[in-house]
């Protein structure tokens, strides 16, 4: 793993052609730097303005997620998963529920699968809008940012109508979702869709032919396919380098196997390719939501399984079995108790493969919850990615990584 420029570019020599050696300049970029998203520190060695050595330090947002949840019940982990990713919390929420369901062997009702698909794609739209918008803003394109925030606001308002919250949604449950979609959902989605598509078009017009934006994006931050595989990268970042892999298509979960969508790929592996892939993925997400809403069957949204689902209140008050079931699910030491075993279950997060490795010892608390954060692998390649780039180019490169401190540091 080269962290020094001579390893990435053999034949590189520090200093000037005329023989005068320039003393390298060391810069601490972050953690409290606006472009470092508040949670990453880079120790940079510069030759002029070229980065010749980089040391990336993470961990400023470490909240002991994996240790904390070992002392919580399986249900109590759900709110913690919201906080893993603060731009697309629904995907983490649903991914965790899916993994616990696999551990339990619970099959959720079909309607739930469609609802989860719709909500995950809404989140993904918000995730990509934030990434592109903030990336453009950091290059001075504030208008693009504002347009995308407007579109994201629309999708977040819809999420708020469904879940009751914008960020701390806790909408998923083991065995289903909290409540059904509101009756006006399809109508509201039509409005969100029009907003997203309108703003996508506007931003594409603003950015696609913009000389400044193109110069800062094209050919900058190149991560070729072989190197991105070497770093285990997935998601839009790796697809922009040509790694044609998407968990939604290749190992379908929820209702992804029943909808048609394309997985956009590029081969350049630079900032521009990542920008294009994300723009295209937003369009594909809109397509998925349209199809899932059209094909969504009627039915319950929680599985009728006494091991995971609370009985209806009416039943609890009127018969003893339901009352006992209620307490069995809520009392300390009882609750959801998956059989002893392990499962590794992956979903496609906003940034790539989001994996949950759960170990159960048969008790009401998880033995181990491991999160495979998608941006961890990408961040481990950033040191190599920014070598040889200009100091100012770190900002767009890092923006295209779409680092999410919440899941990176856990």
């Amino acid at each position, binding site marked *: 793993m080269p962290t020094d420029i001579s390893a990435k570019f053999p034949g590189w020599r520090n200093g000037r052609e005329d023989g005068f050696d320039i003393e390298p300049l060391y810069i601490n970029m972050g953690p409290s730097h606006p472009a470092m998203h508040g949670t990453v520190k880079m120790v940079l060695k510069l030759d002029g303005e070229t980065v010749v050595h980089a040391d990336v330090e993470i961990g400023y947002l470490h909240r002991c997620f994996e*240790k904390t949840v070992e002392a919580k019940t399986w249900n109590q982990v759900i709110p913690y998963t919201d906080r893993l990713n603060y731009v697309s919390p629904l995907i983490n929420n649903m991914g965790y529920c899916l993994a616990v369901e696999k551990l339990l062997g619970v099959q959720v009702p079909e309607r739930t699968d469609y609802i989860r698909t719709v909500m995950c794609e809404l989140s993904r739209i918000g995730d990509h809008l934030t990434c592109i918008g903030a990336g453009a803003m950091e290059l001075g394109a504030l208008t693009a940012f504002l347009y995308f925030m407007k579109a994201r606001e629309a999708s977040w308002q819809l999420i708020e109508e469904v879940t009751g919250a914008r960020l701390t949604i806790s909408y998923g449950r083991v065995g289903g979702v909290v409540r059904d979609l509101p009756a006006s959902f399809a109508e509201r989605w039509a409005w969100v869709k029009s907003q997203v598509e309108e703003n996508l078009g506007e931003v594409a017009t603003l950015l696609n032919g913009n000389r400044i934006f193109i110069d800062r994006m094209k050919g900058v931050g190149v991560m070729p396919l072989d*190197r991105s*595989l*070497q770093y*285990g990268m997935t998601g839009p970042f790796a697809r922009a380098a040509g790694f044609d892999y998407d968990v939604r298509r290749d190992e379908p979960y929820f209702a992804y196997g029943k909808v048609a969508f394309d997985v956009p790929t590029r081969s350049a592996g630079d900032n521009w390719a990542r920008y294009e892939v994300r723009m295209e993925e937003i369009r594909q997400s809109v397509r998925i939501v349209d199809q899932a809403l059209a094909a969504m069957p009627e039915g319950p949204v929680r599985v009728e399984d006494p091991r995971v689902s609370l009985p209806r209140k009416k039943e609890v008050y009127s018969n003893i079995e339901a009352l006992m079931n209620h307490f069995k699910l809520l009392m300390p030491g009882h609750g959801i108790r998956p059989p002893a075993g392990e499962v590794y279950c992956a979903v496609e997060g906003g940034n790539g493969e989001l994996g949950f490795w759960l170990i159960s010892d048969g008790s009401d608390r998880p033995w181990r919850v491991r999160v495979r954060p998608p941006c961890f692998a990408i961040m*481990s390649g950033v040191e190599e990615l920014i070598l040889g780039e200009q100091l100012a180019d770190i900002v767009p490169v890092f923006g295209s990584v779409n680092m999410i401190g919440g899941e990176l540091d856990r």
Partner: protein
Amino acid sequence: MQPNSSPPLHDELTARFGDAVLAAESLGGREALVLRPSALLEAVRHLRGALGFDVLIDLCGADYSGYPGHQGDPLCVSYQLFSTATRRRAWLKVYLPLEGARVDSLCGEYGCANWYERETFDMYGVDFAGHPNLKRLLLYEEFKGHPLRKDYPIQKMQPLIPMRNAVDYEAVARARRSQSPDEAGGR
């Protein structure tokens, strides 16, 4: 999702490395191969070179001390591999003792192993032999112990700067009550 044409990994690895595969665990519909720690690097090189497992999706630890029914060494390092050519996944595990846990580093094979192994060292204290820069990743350098081990108390605090003494409001209120209104300046 594995193509039927290719033989199971278990057979392939056993045929080549003999007793390197200690066991196969069936976990959530997938097979995890438990390898002898000393054979890990060779096996991974073979998986990467000959069988095309070119992506290291995940590398992490787990502590099975006290896990019901678990026998043998408690610390586990788990490897998720993926092959871009055949779209297969492989799951490898090695079990290590708590004291002197040591296994070969995969940094030479996979770039991202560098950070994953640093995190596993940080959280579990596994020593990865041959790692170029094995230091803590998420926690600070002065941190003592490895927090995801089961013997690390969940409430334990290790502040870098000593905590200020919290004001004991109960004691303050008691002292106030015992004073006469004049002394306490009660108005």
